[in-house]
C-alpha cells in the first residue's frame, strides 16, 4: 500500500473494515474512540495506526459507553469523530447516541452487524440491528443509517455518512454486516480534491447574539465549538434555543422534539438514496440491502433471462426509510420480496409502505446470506 | 489566641482601619444561617423581616466590627451577601 499524503488514493485490494477506516480519514475524521469487538476490530486497529499518520487522535476507551461519550466530546471540540462497534457495543452506546441526537453532535457510528441477540455469533453476519439503529435509544428521534453492500461502498458510504452528519448535526450510522466488513475487494479511491466533504455550518452571529440551538431555514442550528469565543451551554435535558434546560414547558418540548425529527423527515428527499435496477416494468420487486442485495441482483438478472419481469430496489439509506420509493414500486408490482438476514425487521417498513401489495419475507439466520438461487426460487413462485 | 495590644502601635495614627460595607440581597437569602453562624466577629444576626421567599434574611448588627474577612461572601450558597471595603480605590468586578 503506498501512501500519497493523507488520502489513500489509488486502486487497492482492501477488506471492508479497512476501506471504512480509509473512508473516514478521507472524509476528514480526526478522532476515533472505540473498543475492540468482533467483527469491527479491524477498523480500530487500522485507525490506531493511520490516525497519528494523518495527525488525528486514536484512543481506546474503557468501554463502548465511554467511546460514544468521548466521540461527542471531541465533536464539540471541533473534530469530526467516529466510533465503530458491533451489536453488543451498539446496545451499550444507545444512551449516548440519544445524547448526541439531543445535543445535535455530528458523529458517525459504524455498526458491523453480527449474529445476535446478546453475545450471539460474534463471527457470523446478520442484519439484526436494523430496527435498533432507528429505535435503540429512548424517546422520539430520527437518525440517518446507510447500508453498504460492497467494500467500495464501505469507503464511499463512510464519507457520505460524515457529510450527512455534518450537514444535519445528527449521529449517522453505517450499518455494515460482517461479510461486507471482512471481505476483500477492489476499491478505487479518488484523489483528495475529488472527494466531496462537508463541514458543519459555523455561526454568523457575533458571540453575544449567538443562540446555540436556534435553527436556520434548514432546521439545523449553526454549530460553535468550545474555545471559539462563543460561550454556550449544551445539555441532554429538554432545552430552548439558548441551550438552557426548560424541563417544565410543554411548548419547549413540542418544539424541540419535533424539530429534531423534522430536520431529518422534512429533508428526507435530500438524504435518501436507493439503487433502482430493472424496475421500470417490474411485476416482482425484490427489496434488499447490504450483502443480500448482491445475491438479489444476481437472482433478478437470472429471472429476467427466464422471462420474469423482476426488478431490484436496493436500499442504500435504511433510515429515514425510503417509503416513497417503496410505495411507488409497490403500486406497479404484483408482489414484493424482502430477503433479510434476520427474523423480520425492515420488512415491516416495506409492508407498511407497500400497503395492499403482498410482501413476502425471506428470512435467513446464521453464517450464510441468501443464495441467488433461493431468491430466484421465490421469484419463480411469485404466484403462490 | 489573639495577642492583646498592651501598648499602642507606633503607626496607629497613620494607619486607617478599613471600613466594611456589607451588601445583602434580601430576597435571595434562604435562611441557611451560615453567614450568621460563621462570622468571626458576630456582625450579623437573623432579622425579623420576611423576604420574598418567606424566610428571615440576616441583618447587620454593627458594620464597624466587620474585619472584611470575606467568609460570608464565600460561604453563602445563594450569592446573597458580600462584603466590600467602603470607598476603596478598587472597583468591584461587574
Amino acid at each position, binding site marked *: 500500500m503506498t501512501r500519497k499524503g493523507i488520502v489513500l488514493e489509488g486502486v487497492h485490494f482492501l477488506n471492508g473494515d479497512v476501506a471504512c477506516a480509509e473512508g473516514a480519514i478521507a472524509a476528514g475524521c480526526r478522532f476515533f474512540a472505540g473498543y475492540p469487538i468482533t467483527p469491527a476490530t479491524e477498523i480500530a486497529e487500522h485507525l490506531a495506526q493511520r490516525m497519528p499518520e494523518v495527525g488525528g487522535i486514536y*484512543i481506546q476507551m474503557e468501554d463502548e459507553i465511554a467511546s460514544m461519550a468521548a466521540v461527542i466530546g471531541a465533536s464539540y471540540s471541533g473534530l469530526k469523530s467516529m466510533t465503530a462497534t458491533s451489536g453488543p457495543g451498539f446496545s451499550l452506546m444507545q444512551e449516548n447516541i440519544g445524547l448526541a441526537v439531543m445535543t445535535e453532535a455530528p458523529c458517525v457510528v459504524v455498526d458491523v452487524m453480527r449474529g445476535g441477540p446478546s453475545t450471539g455469533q460474534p463471527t457470523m453476519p446478520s442484519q439484526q440491528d436494523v430496527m435498533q439503529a432507528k429505535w435503540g435509544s429512548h424517546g422520539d428521534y430520527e437518525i440517518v443509517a446507510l447500508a453498504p453492500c460492497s467494500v467500495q461502498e464501505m469507503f464511499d458510504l463512510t464519507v457520505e455518512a460524515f457529510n450527512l452528519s455534518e450537514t444535519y448535526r445528527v449521529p449517522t450510522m453505517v450499518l455494515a454486516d460482517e461479510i461486507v466488513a471482512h471481505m476483500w475487494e477492489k476499491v478505487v479511491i479518488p484523489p483528495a480534491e475529488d472527494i466531496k466533504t462537508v463541514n458543519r455550518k459555523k455561526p454568523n452571529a457575533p458571540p453575544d447574539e449567538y443562540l446555540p440551538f436556534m435553527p436556520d431555514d434548514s432546521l439545523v442550528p449553526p454549530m460553535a465549538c468550545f474555545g471559539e469565543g462563543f460561550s454556550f451551554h449544551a*445539555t441532554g435535558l429538554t432545552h430552548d434555543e439558548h441551550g438552557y434546560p426548560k424541563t417544565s414547558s410543554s411548548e419547549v418540548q413540542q418544539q424541540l422534539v419535533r424539530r429534531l425529527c423534522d430536520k431529518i423527515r422534512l429533508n428526507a428527499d435530500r438524504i435518501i438514496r436507493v439503487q433502482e435496477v430493472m424496475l421500470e416494468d417490474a411485476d416482482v420487486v425484490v427489496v434488499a440491502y447490504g450483502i443480500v442485495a448482491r445475491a438479489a441482483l444476481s437472482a433478478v438478472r437470472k429471472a429476467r433471462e427466464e422471462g420474469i419481469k423482476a426488478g431490484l430496489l436496493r436500499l442504500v439509506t435504511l433510515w429515514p426509510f425510503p417509503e416513497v420509493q417503496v410505495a411507488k414500486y409497490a403500486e406497479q408490482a404484483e408482489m414484493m420480496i424482502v430477503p433479510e438476514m434476520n427474523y423480520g425487521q425492515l420488512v415491516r417498513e416495506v409492508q407498511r409502505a407497500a400497503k395492499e401489495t403482498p410482501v413476502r419475507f425471506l428470512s435467513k439466520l446464521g453464517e450464510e446470506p441468501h443464495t441467488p438461487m433461493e431468491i430466484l426460487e421465490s421469484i419463480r413462485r411469485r404466484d403462490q | 489566641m489573639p495577642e492583646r495590644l498592651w501598648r499602642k502601635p507606633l503607626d496607629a495614627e497613620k494607619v486607617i482601619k478599613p471600613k466594611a460595607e456589607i451588601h445583602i440581597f434580601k430576597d435571595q437569602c*434562604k435562611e441557611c444561617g451560615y453567614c450568621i453562624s460563621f462570622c468571626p466577629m458576630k456582625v450579623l444576626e437573623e432579622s425579623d423581616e420576611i423576604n420574598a421567599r418567606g424566610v428571615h434574611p440576616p441583618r447587620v448588627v454593627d458594620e464597624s466590627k466587620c474585619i472584611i474577612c470575606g467568609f460570608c461572601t464565600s460561604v453563602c450558597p445563594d450569592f446573597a451577601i458580600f462584603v466590600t471595603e467602603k470607598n476603596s480605590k478598587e472597583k468591584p468586578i461587574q
Partner: protein
Amino acid sequence: MIEETTIQTSAHPFSKYLRSAMMPHIWCPGCGNGVILNCFVQALDELKLDLDKLVVVSGIGCIGRSAGYTNTNSFHTTHGRPIPFATGAKLANPELEVVVISGDGDLFAIGGNHFIHAARRNVGLKVICANNFNYGMTGGQQGPTTPLESSTPTSPYGSIEHPFNLVHLAAASGATYVARWTTVHVRNVTQSFKKLFQKKGFCFVEVITPCPELYGRYNKMRTGLEMMDWFKRASRIEHFSDPSKAEITSDRIVVGEFVDMDRLSYEKLLHEKIAQINEKALGKVK
C-alpha cells in the same frame, strides 16, 4: 483599576461568572453545592482565567446543574459520563481547560469505571466531586459514599454497605493531585480549586457538602448548620497523610492535600507522539 469612585452595590462581585438567565439556582436552603459554586467562581476570579478556554462538564445530579450556572462553555452529559466526554473534548483540543464538576453517585457509582481509567491515563481533567453522601436529585437514596448504618429511602433499616474512601481511590488510580475539604473550609476549597489550574495531569478535589433536606433529615441533622457543625467538629487538617487511612466517620474527617505530584499528562504524551508519527509519514510522502 485605580479610581476614586463609590462601590456599585447592585451586582455581586462574581455575577459575571454566572449565567444571569439561569439564576437563582435550584438548590435547597443550606445546600453545599452553592458554596462549591461560589468557591469555584471565586477561584476563576482570583486567577483571572481565560473563560473562553474553560469548559465545565457536569453529570446528572443536583451538582450537575452547576454547568448551566457557570458563564463558560459548558456541557451537561448523561448520568455518569462527564469524564469520558471531557476526555474526548480535552484530547481534541488540549488548549482547553476542562473541569468536571459532579457528584458522588455520578462519578463513583455509574461513572466509577470512567474515573479510574481517566486517572490511570492521567488525562488533564480537573475533577471536583461534591460528596453529599447520597443521591440528592432523586430523593436521597444511598450511594457509594453513604456512611455505614445511614438511613436513606433505599436503606430504611440502615445501610450495610461500606462506603468508598474517595481520596484513596483517586490516589490509587493515579491522580496527580488529590485533596479533600468540606464546605466549612471555604478558603482552602478556593485555594485547592486554584491549584487545579496550575497543575497538569488528572486532579481530584473532594468537597464534602451538606444535603440538609435529604441526607441530613434522614440522619438526625435536619439543618445545614447541624451538618456543617459535624464537618467542623470532626475534620482535622493533615496534609499528605496516608489516603488509605482517611475514611470518613462520624468523628473523624481527614481533610487536606493527600497527593501533589507531577506526571506527564496523557494529552501531552499523545500529541507529542502524533506529531512525531505525522512528521515521519509526511516526510515519506515528499
